[in-house]
């Protein structure tokens, strides 16, 4: 039975314009495949600019096309970094990123497996994100990180998407295999364009 959090929509692909990239985590180690996060994210951002052509090349202001390319590149990169970092290596379950283009928004869906012992902590974090003021959470996380050097993860990816890009986030947790249990989490991000 799937558990949904935040703004998660189960609707099937209703957009005629979409991309799906899939990654097999076991084919090469994380350190080697790290560069592919950036390559994939930049490709996705660049790809979408076709649908938002540059308008005024003489303007001093950044045009819509460049803004979207940058936003997509940033969000896709963060989602892939999270997926790669928190993936359950033992599960052999693939990681995928899907982008859908709608007239008023771009929808990202990233799926990765997650070790079952991390689920509770992650869901508690999500509840905080939904209930607390994300601006306050962002500054608190930064101040906390400044005092405590021990964490290798900044805990800022999702917060920056909400605060800096006004993105809407949602999550789905599903048990996709049993014996042993494999739990997959899909993070959905909606970016208004």
């Amino acid at each position, binding site marked *: 039975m799937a558990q949904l959090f935040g703004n998660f929509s189960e609707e099937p692909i209703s957009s005629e314009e979409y991309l799906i990239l899939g990654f097999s985590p076991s084919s090469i180690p994380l*350190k080697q495949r*790290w560069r592919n*996060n*950036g390559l994939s994210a930049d490709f996705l951002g660049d790809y979408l600019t076709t649908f938002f052509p540059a308008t005024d090349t003489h303007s*001093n*202001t*950044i045009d819509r096309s*460049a*803004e979207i*390319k*940058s*936003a997509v*590149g*940033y969000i896709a*990169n*963060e989602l892939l*970094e999270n997926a790669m*970092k928190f993936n359950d290596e033992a599960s052999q379950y693939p990681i995928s990123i899907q982008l859908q283009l709608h007239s008023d928004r771009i929808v990202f869906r990233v799926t990765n497996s997650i070790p079952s012992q991390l689920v509770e902590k992650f869901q508690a974090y999500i509840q905080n994100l939904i209930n607390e003021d994300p601006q306050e959470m*962002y*500054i608190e996380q*930064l*101040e906390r*990180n*400044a005092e405590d*050097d021990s*964490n*290798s*993860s*900044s805990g*800022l*990816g999702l*917060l*920056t998407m909400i*605060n*800096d*890009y006004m993105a809407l986030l949602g999550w789905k947790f599903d048990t996709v295999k049993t014996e042993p249990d494999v739990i997959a989490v899909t993070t959905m991000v909606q970016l208004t364009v």
Partner: protein
Amino acid sequence: MEIKTKDYHVNYDSETTTLLCKGSLRLSGMDEYAPIVQIFNQVADLEPSELKFNLKGLEFLNSSGINVLSKFVIKIRQKKHVSMIVQGSQQIPWQGKSLKNLKRLMPTLKLEWE
């Protein structure tokens, strides 16, 4: 105090008291950012009275990088006699969205745009 790779360049010029960060920074976590953090800490310890942080050429920064920059700003904030100017580019979209958060961490910080 310099690191130069094919992706990014970090350098401190003590004559102009300018810390430069340019290129694309998307390292995987605090371990990978450690050499850059070391330079930032050394600069903070020098306590220049006016520190310029030139980010005009920083095309991409992941959230771990935002964390590193923010920690540096907090460190400078704690040095009571160092004033900081962050130089950003209006042509780089992420900067317009994210650099203002540095001012929330250190209200006396000046943000200059080119």
